[in-house]
């Protein structure tokens, strides 16, 4: 007889559970980015993909029964080398989180501008073949006029 608790324990002990989670993140994110129409939802999907990739790399550093990779005075170097977890993935993931955050910030900023310009968040209306009859011609032209370098600076800083 196999009980679910022991399976969960095995999954958690080996890094499998974490890997499955990251795969689920990526698949859910891809679904969101491809099939959902609302651009904010698309952006959320993209955030899921990035976090899935980050979790995947983070999981690689796992070592069963390992210790924190900090070499304290008095430690035996040989023992430390054999038992510490792998520190590199953590450093890499920190960097990708920063990059991912800045990509998200730029995407959200553009989403804001697109919403102002088109008056909608629907991707099929913004990008689609049906040309948007802009809800309010005056406001559209005003927005175009204000698309100067200063706005862009705000979006990128």
């Amino acid at each position: 007889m196999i009980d679910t608790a022991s399976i969960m324990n095995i999954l958690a002990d080996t890094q499998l559970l974490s890997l499955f989670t990251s795969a689920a993140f990526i698949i859910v994110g891809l679904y969101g980015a491809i099939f959902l129409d609302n651009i904010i939802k698309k952006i959320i999907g993209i955030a899921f993909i990035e976090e899935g990739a980050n979790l995947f790399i983070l999981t690689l550093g796992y070592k069963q029964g390992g210790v924190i990779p900090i070499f304290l005075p008095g430690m035996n170097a040989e023992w430390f080398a054999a038992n510490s977890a792998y520190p590199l993935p953590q450093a890499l993931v920190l960097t990708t989180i920063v990059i991912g955050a800045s990509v998200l910030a730029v995407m959200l900023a553009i989403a804001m501008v697109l919403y102002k310009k088109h008056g909608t968040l629907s991707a099929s209306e913004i990008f689609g073949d049906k040309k948007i009859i802009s809800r309010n011609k005056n406001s559209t032209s005003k927005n175009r006029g204000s698309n100067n370098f200063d706005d862009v600076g705000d979006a990128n800083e």
Partner: protein
Amino acid sequence: MELYDKIVNSFKGITSIKEKVKDDLTTNESVSSALAAELVLISTLLIAAIMFRHINIILTIVVVLGLALILITNMPLIPKLIKEQSDSLEKMMFYVILTLGILITIIYWGTI
């Protein structure tokens, strides 16, 4: 007689390229460039298909003849090609995901 009609119709298909893409193309210049693109597409694809000879000669003959038949019977190819490569997000996304799927499938299961 039927075959003759078919060939004549196929040529009519080429000359009607102007109507099929009239959104963009109105001048002589654009029609001639559409024809050039058509010819380049067909000839390069056929020449590229000859490279199957490194795998198998008979396969090459079958592929080249089949490809030629398919390409010529669907004659104005360029309007379709341009429609597929438009910059609409859904089309681009579709091809991106399709490529990812095919690439991973071939690389992962194609080499066992």
